[in-house]
């Protein structure tokens, strides 16, 4: 897909659409929980993992972990350019709740060679 031609919000939408199609993620076989991504200017999304099965929704409500950041930071994180741990301890991503869950899910859904 040609991400260069897309707007920031479109890229974020495309990311979640792509995740929604993944179904099962082996890296998350032992993980269950919900992470809310609250991207300033691009709305809120929830990714729920149930022992590796991945569901994306736009109104899940309760989350075990909430990650809040701006669109630039979010794009950099999902593209694998920005390390989430560094961003979290720097304060450019704000974390509430279970950071461990947020980290695991982020590592599984971001682009990378793995």
């Amino acid at each position, binding site marked *: 897909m040609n991400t260069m031609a897309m707007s920031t919000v479109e890229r974020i939408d495309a990311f979640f659409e792509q995740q929604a199609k993944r179904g099962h993620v082996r890296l998350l076989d032992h993980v269950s929980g919900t992470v809310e991504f609250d991207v300033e200017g691009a709305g809120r999304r929830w990714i729920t993992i149930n022992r590796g099965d991945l569901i994306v929704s736009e109104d899940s409500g309760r989350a075990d972990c909430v990650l809040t950041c701006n669109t630039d930071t979010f794009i950099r994180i999902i593209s694998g350019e920005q390390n989430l741990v*560094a961003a979290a301890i*720097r304060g450019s991503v*704000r974390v509430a709740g279970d*950071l461990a869950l947020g980290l695991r899910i982020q590592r599984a859904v971001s682009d990378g060679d793995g």
Partner: protein
Amino acid sequence: MAMAKKTVSILEGNTFVVSDLAGNIDATPVETHGLFAWDTRFLSRWILTIDGQPLQTLSRDDLDYFSAQFFLVPGTGTVYVDADLSVMRKRSAGNGFREKLLVRNEKSEARDIELRLEAAADFADLFEVKDALSKKGETYQRVEDGRLVLGYRRETFVRETWITSSGPSALDPKGMTFRVHLEPHGEWQATIDVRVPDVLKATPPELNGGEHGAPASDAAPAKDLDVWLGSAPKLTCDWAPMARIYQRSLVDLAALRFFPGIVAGALPAAGLPWFMSIFGRDSLVTSYQALPFVPELATTTLRALAAWQGTRRDDFRDEEPGKILHELRFGEMTAFEERPHSPYFGSADSTPLFLILLDETERWTGDRALVAELEGEARAALHWIDAYGDRNGDGYVEYERHMKTGLENQCWKDSWNSILFADGSMSKLPRATCEIQGYVYDAKVRVARLARTFWNDTALAERLEREAADLKARFNRDFWLPDRQAFALAIDGDGGKVDAITSNIGHLLWSGIADPGHAAACVRHLMGDGLFSGWGIRTMAEGEGGYNPIGYHLGTVWPHDNSLIAAGLARYGYRDEAARVAMAILEAATYFNGRLPEAFAGYRRDLTSFPVEYPTACSPQAWASGTPLLLLRTLLGLEPVGEHLLVDSALPEQIGWLQLLDIPGRWRRTDAFGRGLGATGRGQG
């Protein structure tokens, strides 16, 4: 006056406090005082005065690893004048610290005093403290809602220290003042809390509603330590120092427990003061040493390292899919990616060590569920070994950093100049050190067992067994130095055999990769005058070009290194030699009040009548603290066999008998008894 003065250190959880003997914190370039948490100094100044005068120390007590008590009187201490005021200062660490002050008027007249605590924080990253770097952001102070806030901001990075007191005090940006009226023989007391945030739940305080961790109550750590000591096996021994060394080990391992946050439970941090964090290699080795005593450390270590396992290629962090981390840090330089520790993966041995510990943990604990839970991570780790660890396809795991910020040496001897030829010249990168190949061999043999027994994957088991056998054959050919009758330390980037004689060859016995004939030759080196100093086996043999008895990895004796080598000697049937090495290290421990340092000098035992501590060694250091535990296992010959614990002791002549009761494991609890005096049936096996 450049010499560092005596300090008092206390720690609990992820916090530690280093002060002078009066309890004051006064950080200077030569004094690494401070309240540290999450790799950041949250207090660099904390000085108590009465009526503007400093206090002098009458005595102090290190009550426990988590608390200390200071008995003080006014005066500078040059000329002692009968004091008319007594001051007691008791401090307990945990999410910051809590300090209790008690002042007593020893005269029969009432009086008024002004007691002041001066406070400041530089929020230095531990890396900055170590390398004396300057800050890029701004500090600030404010007084609000009855608390003094010391803060630091650099863009979105915010850290704050919150200080409150129980009694009425006047707060100002530089500290707090108590105006106290004391009746004749009257007393006054106050409790002061210094709080630091939990950085893993770290959001700037104004955004998370100001959530800061509360200092733990005084009673909790004491109770927790009692439970920890109470659940460890009970040791008795006719060699008197053993009980003290054993107790010291258990208490230091309790003190070094680090709560990784990412999973429940505690794992061993690497050491105080510089290494209070997760280190793949150190946490894995320490957990291995401690398995027969406190197996829960291994479970947390494996889970935490699995959670942080590499998933992508990231050259800045030397990260690759399946790789186990080297070091994780939370300070400002890591936050701004001036250092790669978020986490950093520059370690070529932590991945095979992870697999070794996983198998060993199941052998002791029978925790099948853990082996099932970590199957995916174990398979990814195996894949890393062959796909990424072997960088040039020669069948051996070698390392070379991708960026200048990474580590030059990614084996346990991680100083830049540790891998030398016999003539003292430097080897080239990438380097395949010998002990890493041993770990890979052991990892494959062990995971073959896990695959067959628990994962129902015979094909994988058979493949791993073939690969292990092939690796062993190749290794014994390719790494052997016929003219020196030893294994090479490494094969370097030019394909040259790095031919210095080092302690690394001892690890090959621990792993089982050495052929029996080659092992016998290695034992002659290990127990010969070049490597064995009398206090233990040196990292590099005396007589080598690079040898230096006080060189970090070039001739010093490292207790943890010796514990693995002694286990290796025993594995190959050299029980007398194992007992000699174990005894040398245990005797050395008696010169350090039972607490083994990270390393001590490699001087010959007959040259110095006591072991000389390495100048900047960390203390306590986790794998030094774990050393007596693995030595005890080796001396008693403890080995899980099926559902039972095999005991087959071989004690040094100084020890007549040794008893360990209530050893935890898959057998629930069992006892081991060892008797000295002409144990028979020893020899090569």
